[in-house]
């Protein structure tokens, strides 16, 4: 087995999945905050984790139980893949491959990466907008149907972009949801916008009121993860997302 390979370990075997959501520490921690909230509010249960010989030797202890930091949760046909630590840049391609291969084997209808896009005027924005990047015309049509505008030009850097590349290659329908967010500070408001967008896509009614009410508390408690994520984002040239890509008219 290649030392760098990543594997999805199912503690509870599953056969099918409609939506596979991915949220890892990134811009404003919005994917992590949104999926943690969704898991809690919708009562998803833990069904597995990611493992690799190349992962740092870290366990997270919750209520006395040691757990791997990258875990899978499920409720009905909804799967959430979350990580409590930033993904090491050298492991992003193999992590994306493992998750997409696994999702494909489970006949996943749509992989959705929850993420943020940093905007310099975030303080002036009351309700952050959410943009979408679809892997196919069918996914773009779906975005249009629920009034989620397309992210039309720009660089994207991170696990969501590696996942998208893998999905385009293998033909798995995929979508990146990007909420306008703070780059360097945890942004629960942007996470709430992601949940609202997912509500529209999946026909759910997850209430974001509690998330917004806990906004300050979440910002206090996520400072350290944000700081570590910032260091990781520098390694992945995350700053590229603020650059104008070359365009040929």
């Amino acid at each position: 087995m290649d030392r760098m390979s990543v594997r999805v370990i199912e503690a509870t075997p599953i056969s099918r999945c409609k939506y596979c959501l991915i949220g890892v520490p990134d811009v404003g921690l919005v994917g992590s905050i949104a999926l943690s909230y969704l898991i809690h509010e919708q009562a998803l249960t833990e069904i597995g984790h990611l493992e690799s010989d190349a992962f740092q030797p870290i366990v997270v202890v919750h209520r006395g139980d040691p757990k791997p930091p990258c875990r899978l949760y499920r409720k009905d046909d909804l799967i959430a893949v979350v990580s409590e630590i930033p993904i090491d840049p050298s492991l992003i391609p193999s992590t994306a491959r493992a998750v997409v291969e696994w999702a494909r084997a489970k006949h996943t209808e749509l992989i959705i990466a929850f993420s943020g896009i940093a905007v310099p005027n975030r303080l002036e924005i009351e309700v952050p907008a959410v943009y979408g990047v679809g892997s196919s015309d069918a996914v773009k049509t779906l975005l249009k149907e629920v009034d989620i505008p397309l992210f039309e030009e720009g660089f994207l850097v991170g696990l969501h972009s590696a996942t998208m590349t893998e999905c385009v290659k293998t033909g798995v329908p995929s979508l990146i949801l990007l909420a306008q967010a703070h780059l360097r500070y945890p942004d629960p408001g942007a996470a709430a916008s992601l949940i609202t967008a997912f509500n529209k896509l999946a026909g759910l009614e997850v209430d974001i009121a509690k998330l917004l009410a806990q906004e300050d508390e979440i910002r206090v408690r996520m400072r350290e993860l944000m700081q570590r994520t910032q260091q990781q984002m520098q390694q992945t040239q995350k700053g590229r997302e603020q650059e104008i890509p070359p365009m040929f008219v």
Partner: protein
Amino acid sequence: MWDLGRGSLEPLASVSETEDRVIVEVDLPLVRKDDIRIRLIEGGLEVEASLTRCVRFARWGTVQRSCEFRSFYKLVPLPSPVVADGVQATFKRGILRVVLRKRRAREHRIPIE
């Protein structure tokens, strides 16, 4: 990012520069504008703010679980010398933004031979 002795948490902060300004941003959730104290001192910009309520990490670690954090404290090192005059500070949605003017070096014209 915490100091048990002081009972303080270290806030997230960022520093950027323009040609003539240094801009410091500090994330201060659970803080009121009137409870922030900013001082320009030799080592940088000192920011201290009391929290609107104590924060306790009830199940975390061993000693920390019994500790309550009551404030934020951070000394932000500045990348360039600044002047104390004309400092602008704003606080919006829990983010403090301080704009400081850089001290200008004395100008010397360099002739081209």
